[in-house]
């Protein structure tokens, strides 16, 4: 297989396979969750479930001041890498082309050097996240194989993307193929790991907000 063939495979059949596993996995998992259902709350409400749930979906993005103080490194590094991931994935022109091709619409991209800078920030913050995970005793205690795997698979597209953009080491088709394949790997493990939180956190936050909101507490 030549590198262009590999690239074409990654852009074609590889992506098909990854898409099938990703979409099927995500859809099945979300339906699995929702179908477990929740008993209706029979207690007299003190607040609204729906609006509180929706509010918490957004508000949980920002920690309260004291919590931030106590976990500032975890939170800061988390912000950087999530924001970086978001920008590198959603704001890079070639990626937007891909998205537009799949979902039918796109949006303006950020200037490439900006995205490039964010890629570096994201990679650095992911490294910081790992160091934190291995040195913070709570995180080290909680860490399992899945955490390390997802860390690696999240980092991989960033690194391959960065070196593919800067054309370091290998020939361009190989680099691009590696980048695409690393993303496909990420897509494949996505539904079966904690990466699912990208979708389920909205459910979780809604439930949390709804449970508290029903009792009149903004959570």
């Amino acid at each position, binding site marked *: 297989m*030549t590198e*262009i*063939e590999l*690239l*074409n495979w990654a*852009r*074609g*059949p590889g*992506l*098909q396979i990854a*898409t*099938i596993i990703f*979409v*099927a*996995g*995500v*859809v*099945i*998992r*979300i*339906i*699995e969750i*929702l*179908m*477990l*259902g929740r008993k209706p709350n029979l207690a007299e409400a003190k607040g609204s479930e729906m609006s509180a749930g929706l509010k918490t979906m957004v508000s949980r993005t920002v920690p309260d001041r004291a919590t931030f103080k106590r976990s500032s490194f975890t939170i800061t590094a988390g912000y950087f890498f999530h924001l970086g991931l978001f920008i590198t994935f959603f704001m890079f*022109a*070639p*990626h937007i*082309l*891909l998205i537009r*091709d*799949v*979902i*039918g619409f796109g949006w303006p*991209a*950020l*200037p*490439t*050097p900006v*995205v490039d800078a964010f890629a570096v920030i994201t990679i650095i913050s992911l490294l910081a996240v790992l160091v934190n995970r291995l040195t913070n005793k709570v995180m080290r205690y909680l860490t399992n194989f899945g955490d390390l795997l997802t860390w690696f698979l999240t980092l991989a597209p960033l690194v391959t993307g960065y070196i593919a953009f800067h*054309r370091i080491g290998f*020939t*361009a*088709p190989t680099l*691009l193929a590696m980048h695409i394949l690393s993303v496909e790997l990420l897509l494949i493990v996505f539904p079966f790991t904690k990466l699912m939180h990208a979708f389920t956190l909205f459910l979780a936050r809604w439930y949390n907000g709804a449970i508290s909101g029903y009792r009149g507490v903004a959570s």
Partner: protein
Amino acid sequence: MTKDKIMQDEGKIRQGTLGEALNRQGVSRRSFMKYFASTASMLALPPAMLPVIARALEQARRPSVIWLSFQECTGCTESFTRAHTSTLENLIFDAISLDYHHTLQAAAGHAAEAARVAAMEENYGEYLLVVDGSIPAGNPGYSTIAGISNLDMLKEAAKGAAAIIAVGTCSTYGGIPQADPNPTGAVSVGEIIKDKPIVNVPGCPPIPVVMTGVLAHFLTFGTLPELDHLGRPKTFYGKSIHDRCYRRPFYDKGLFAETFDDEGAKKGWCLFKLGCKGPTTYNACATVKWNDGTSFPIEAGHPCIGCSEPDFWDGGGFYRALSMPTENITKTAVYTAAGAAAAGVALGAMNRAKKSASNKIHIKVTIDDLEK
């Protein structure tokens, strides 16, 4: 260059050195050196080497060249004959003994084939074999010459060749004949011949001076130029179009033409979004250019189609950006989602059944049930 001239010179200049042949044709040593200065620079040879090369070339014996055309469109030959250095084609054709080229030679039919066989016998082990076009390996009957299948002819001709130069994307990678669904089972030269040095000069067509440059190298040193992992001369294929593209700064800044006639296109912005394959295409178009250095596709406002790369025809379309999938992912995603939804509902129902079974077998926990 005309066919007549080639054939006319055929007998006369088969023997003798290149220097003698040039002299006979009235080519001064000065113009000879000038030509070689340009070739050498393309070959990235140090200027100090020039006299050496020139001397070597003058004394080189004109090798016999057999040119086989298989599943091809003659574009490569067309390109070859349009080498832009005005005297280049003459020089080259004078420097070699083109003993067989069924498009260019005057002879036809049995005479032509006889010339080929004769050249092969006479120069066994020494002749250069140039191939354009792919070989139908699936069903050799798709392409035959004088009743001989391409496959057989290639194998036979390869046996006595000193080296093979695969010219054009078809012979180097299978090219358009090999494009999906590849009805003829087309393959490249390299997939059939494993025991001879092969120089791949891909491109659809290749840049003429690249072809002549490779020949010049062979003539000068009697060896093949340094090749990369795909068998291509590093000199010409060492950098991608993207790396040398004059529109690269726009790419780096993220300034793209969105359509062929928008502001960006007029301002000469990067054509990535219009499907340019420059980033993954290794060729010299951006530096050597075409038609006597006049222009190249990107300069003309058209994205690179990646013609010198394998499978360029199957890359999902010339106007689909590299970052786009080559297949319809949306459809896949929608169908998968529909199927997965059904599967998810089934799994969800199983979960519910499991949970209600748990509720059913639940025995009320009383204060007497709190200890083992």
